């Protein structure tokens, strides 16, 4: 029996609602962004729910101040705004300050990649992984389904550091049917056989799985890895896993060649024997076309058809 899907934020916030009943030290701060579960948090815990208004800089500063007073803070807003509008507040009062004083502030950004499909480039988010992974001391979590998102609540409590949790705004199918992946590894292997390993995070995990299934139908296996802990994954374990493959393909719903997941793997694999690598991501540029998420993905090079074509060319080029 397959698990019914749920919005990532609802799965995560339900865990928070439950925990706030037991733990007086949990505090929720939002920049005027909501959800039905949030209405329940606001109703049940008015003393530890604050809406700062449309003011992301203050969202971060107030969260830092609350954390300095011992609270575990969950700050909530739309992904591009909670990362880019207040980047220097995050750098100074979370990443830098936590070098000296431990702070548990969890930035929950909703709307990874193109998940706000028709809202256009202001609400879509193709830069967050790049800029957030530039900051030391900052955790970076990127689930591909609500099962993982819910389990990440435990990670948020357990790791006393600032973190950015990027959630999809759409309801996505469940990838981890057997239960949430092991948080200590930071990645999970979803398909093993094959010469080529596809690595993705967030929504593109679903694209990778779809493409791998199509290739499998024509007799070629592709491995797929869900990298859900981008800053804290276990490097030796991932390197060991990747050693089994002749070629590596990364797929991200962010700008290609601008320091995101592709750069992470250039760095990770720098000391391993050279092997063919393909990095697929959004062609840099801002576009205003309307369409479904898959249609938008195809236009910028990360839809299933575009990925399949790029993979086929890659396989031919390297005789894989």
């Amino acid at each position, binding site marked *: 029996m397959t698990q019914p899907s749920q919005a990532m934020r609802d799965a995560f916030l339900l865990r928070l609602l439950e925990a706030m009943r037991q733990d007086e030290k949990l505090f929720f701060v939002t920049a005027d962004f909501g959800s039905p579960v949030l209405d329940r948090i606001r109703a049940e815990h008015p003393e530890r729910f604050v809406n700062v208004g449309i003011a992301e800089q*203050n969202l971060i500063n107030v969260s830092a101040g609350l954390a300095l007073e011992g609270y575990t803070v969950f700050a909530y807003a739309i992904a591009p705004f909670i990362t880019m509008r207040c980047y220097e507040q995050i750098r100074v*009062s979370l990443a830098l300050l936590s070098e000296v*004083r431990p702070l548990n502030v969890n930035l929950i950004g909703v709307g990874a990649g193109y998940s706000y499909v028709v809202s256009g480039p202001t609400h879509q988010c193709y830069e967050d992984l790049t800029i957030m992974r530039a900051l030391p001391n900052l955790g970076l979590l990127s689930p591909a389904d609500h099962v993982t998102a819910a389990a990440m609540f435990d990670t948020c409590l357990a790791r006393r550091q600032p973190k950015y949790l990027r959630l999809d705004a759409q309801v996505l199918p469940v990838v981890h049917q057997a239960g949430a992946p092991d948080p200590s590894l930071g990645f999970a292997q979803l398909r093993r056989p094959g010469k080529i390993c596809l690595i993705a995070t967030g929504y593109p995990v679903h694209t990778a799985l779809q493409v791998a299934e199509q290739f499998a139908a024509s007799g070629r296996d592709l491995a797929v890895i869900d990298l859900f802990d981008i800053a804290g994954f276990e490097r030796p374990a991932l390197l060991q896993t990747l050693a089994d493959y002749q070629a590596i393909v990364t797929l991200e719903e962010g700008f290609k060649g601008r320091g995101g997941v592709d750069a992470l793997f250039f760095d990770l694999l720098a000391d391993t024997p050279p092997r063919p690598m393909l990095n697929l991501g959004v062609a840099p540029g801002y576009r205003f076309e309307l369409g479904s998420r898959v249609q938008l993905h195809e236009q910028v090079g990360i839809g299933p058809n575009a990925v399949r074509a790029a993979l086929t060319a890659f396989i031919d080029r390297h005789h894989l």
Partner: protein
Amino acid sequence: MNSPEHALSAKTRWVWRETLRIHRRAPETRLASSLSSIEIFVALYYGGILRHDAAEPLAELRDRLIISKGHGSICMYPILADLGFFPVEALDKVCQAGGFLGGIPDPVIPGYETVNGSLGHGLGVATGMALGLKRKASDRAVFVLAGDGELHEGANWEAAMFAAHHGLDNLNLIVDDNRISMLDYTNKIVGHGDLAGRFAAFGWQAEEADGHDVVQVRERLAAMKENHSGKPKVLVAKTRKGHGVPKLEGEPLCHIINPKPELLDQLLGEAP
């Protein structure tokens, strides 16, 4: 001669001289903006306003002080050393390898709470602390020192709106209103007009003081701290950047001017 007023004035003069001495050794420090806030710090630390614990700087029972205008607080170094936050010898290593007292103070210094080098962050973080203290039913106060120049940063006004809306009357902002930013007088850059009036319009309890009258500053801060009328509070301290140093005081570019060592020697050689 031994009145508390006299003691505060004597301490003020001593901190002024020590600050000049530090700058004489470490010209990388910002002198002018560190001279406008001396009376404010002396009143807070020696005037019985700020509860503090040098042995445990982050003790829960302390009052919090966020120094948002980090650069302009080199005068804190002699005060913190004098109170025992760190050994006096550390003052000899300002801006030197192996020391921890930098050109801009960082929270590795005992007595500093937050990162202050980037301007306009202090009030927001202090607002979060004030909210946290309210929610955990603590009666500790939060003080913030900000410069008038950094009030150009919009995040301050996000915090100002928030603090008033939530009635954070444990939050006490002191503006070191020395009226000079880096390149000019603030009223020639983007003027603040009636600064106290602006805060009052945002729902704050606002007052002004002569920032170089340490007794008046102490009285105003004591009254401000005890005032719990449901509003955050601000004291706009009218100060002079480069106070007491010719060629700095009144000079619009004084933020980036280093007086000649001979001038500092001459000033330090005069009778206190």
